């Protein structure tokens, strides 16, 4: 019988001030691991800020910020092996960066260039899934492949709270449970699905308890506590790899940003509520822990901010300097071998583009 831990026993290691309230997991006893996590959070936020700024100045397409939710995907990615497969929704930039997707690839994707999905690093990871909640079945298929081949690999699928209302989500959890595939479903439970608040999305007390219907374990974790997120994910992934099947993790966080750069949340959301969530944001508590433990200081902070800023800036420049793909590209990648009827269209498109040039 699957168990679900609710809000009262939510997994948490650090409180919002960065004080230890739970047991420090094994990996966290090594300060280098915590520093790695912190640097990843800062890089994610730096990238995020730049992406928004580029969009606002017409140099990037619509962008979905991960402001305040960085710990969810960074904690998850940090728990994964390189040959696991990551299936993000569209707010897991930090996790993608941890797994080897480059800043330039992220800029290319959000700038509207398919080459951004041709990851040089994590070759098996899926690109973002824009039709909300339609990718959990893919995660089941990937995990099933691992199980059929007897490989100790797992898939991690990140969905939003809104996505848990989708039929595909329920179907996937159900199939994962029946087949006991090594898949971990991670909910970025950020309390808002565009303008629909969590209370209007589901009558369930927690989203983690949707695992009960699928017969798999489910638990909640403080999504702003990157240490706790990583710890919970490590346990879930270990279970999966050992053949004990899938699980559902609800990472409770808050969407401090608008849904996308074209959205204006002030239309439907109380600013005061957002203000109240700022103190719980993930970067501050970890910085406080590290500073209090003597592993972090002002100079390191400044140096890190500069380093991240330079890296992001350089990647942005590379992206901006990358010319768009030729007209033919979209035709060449539609099929393995271009059928005659499409080849004709390709030539027409090239000719029209040249005529317009």
């Amino acid at each position, binding site marked *: 019988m699957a168990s679900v831990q609710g809000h009262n026993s939510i997994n948490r290691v650090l409180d919002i001030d960065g004080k230890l309230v739970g047991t420090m997991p094994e990996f966290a006893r090594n300060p280098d691991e915590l520093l790695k996590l912190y640097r990843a959070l800062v890089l994610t*936020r*730096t990238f995020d*800020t730049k992406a*928004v*700024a580029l969009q*606002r*100045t017409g140099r990037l*397409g*619509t962008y979905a910020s991960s402001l305040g939710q960085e710990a969810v995907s960074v904690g998850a990615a940090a728990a994964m092996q390189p040959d696991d497969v990551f299936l993000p929704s569209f707010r897991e930039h930090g996790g993608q960066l941890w797994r080897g997707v480059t800043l330039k690839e992220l800029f290319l994707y959000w700038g509207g260039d398919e080459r951004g999905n041709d990851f040089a690093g994590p070759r098996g990871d899926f690109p973002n899934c824009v039709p909300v909640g339609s990718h959990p079945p893919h995660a089941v298929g990937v995990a099933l492949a691992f199980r059929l081949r007897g490989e100790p690999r797992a898939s991690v699928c990140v969905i939003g709270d809104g996505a848990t209302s989708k039929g595909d989500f329920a179907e996937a959890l159900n199939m994962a449970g029946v087949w006991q595939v090594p898949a971990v479903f991670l909910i970025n439970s950020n309390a808002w699905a*565009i303008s629909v608040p969590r209370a209007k999305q589901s009558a369930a007390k927690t989203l983690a308890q949707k695992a009960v219907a699928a017969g798999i374990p489910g638990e909640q974790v403080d999504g702003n506590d990157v240490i706790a997120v990583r710890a919970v994910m490590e346990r879930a992934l270990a279970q999966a790899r050992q053949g004990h099947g899938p699980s559902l993790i609800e990472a409770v966080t808050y969407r*401090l940003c*608008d*849904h*996308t750069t*074209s*959205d*204006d*949340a*002030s*239309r439907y959301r109380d*600013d*005061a509520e*957002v*203000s109240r969530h*700022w*103190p719980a944001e993930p970067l501050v508590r970890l910085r406080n822990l590290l500073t209090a433990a003597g592993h972090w200081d*002002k100079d390191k*902070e*400044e140096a890190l*901010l*500069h380093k991240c*800023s330079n890296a992001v800036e350089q990647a942005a420049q590379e992206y901006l300097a990358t010319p768009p793909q030729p007209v033919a590209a979209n035709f060449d990648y539609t099929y393995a071998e271009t059928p005659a009827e499409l080849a004709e269209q390709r030539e027409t498109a090239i000719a029209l583009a040249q005529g317009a040039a």
Partner: protein
Amino acid sequence: MKTFALPDLGEGLQEAEIVSWHVAEGDHVVADQPLLAVETEKAVVEIPSPQAGHIGKLLAKVGEHVKVGAPVLEFEEGAHAESGTVVGQLAEARAAPTAAPRAAASFAPSAPTVRATPAVRARARELGVDLSSVTPSGPGNSITLADVQAAASHLGAKVPETLRGARRTMAANMARAWREVAHATVQDDADIEAWSPDEDVTGRLVRALIAGCKAEPALNASFDAGSLSLRENPTINLGLAIDSPDGLFVPVLRDVARATPQEWRRQIDAIKRGVKERSLAPADLRGATITLSNFGLIAGRHASLIVMPPQVAILGVGRTVAQAVQSGNGIALHRMLPVSLTFDHRAVTGGMAARFLRAVITDLETAG
């Protein structure tokens, strides 16, 4: 625009360096949201927003030293222009230039539509047929290919016509004959001054031809190219070339050597009727051993004609012409009949041909 100034950072600090901005122009921010990070002597400090609002303009850059109290950003005032979408950009309508109202164009009543499929139209163009003049016979009052063809032939336009019947046969036969036979022609004239004015011309020609065959039976033989053999024919079956509106017919007068001139006449009349009435049987057209063509009935003097295998000869007779000939010691006008003998030189020598022709001419030149 409401400006936001760098607040008092405490500890008597008068200025700070901007390390990074956390927001961009256009962003919506809430109270307590970190706007930027500044470096003081002691720490990197986050500066929170005092209010909710939309960022209008950032007034300082990363790396700049800003004094406490100096403006660092402006908030938008008034209503924020919203995008009206959650993805992408919706372009706004452009103010349409006011155009002078156009006078309603007066349209002449259109000509009644001609209905014809593209293939039919293409054909009509090829043949120079004006579709509006064609009477349609197809479904839905449409013009068919046949309608166009008919219109074209009435116009006298050159309609490529598929040959049928006798003309088709002639085309095939002549082509074959031309390919196979080694044609050679010898020509002369017969002095027929001795003929009576109402001489039976055809009868005389037949008689003369028989005389030729008697003199040189080889000209009445059948030649087989495959075996290179020449077979003399016991009878003379004379093919008579007859012109008709339906084309060339060559019906056969059987065994003319043993029939009487009256019988020839009867056969010839029957043949001519048969051609006219198109009642000739295929058997009537087969088995000629030698052919006679009196093309002079129409026009022409001498001619090289086509020998139809397995025959080896065809005698062509041209138009009678009065010519000046030697008569005694002077010149007289005599009626002269041109005769041309085309033969298959694979089987027949020039000598045979010439002797045949001499016999023909000798017979023609007798009085009756």
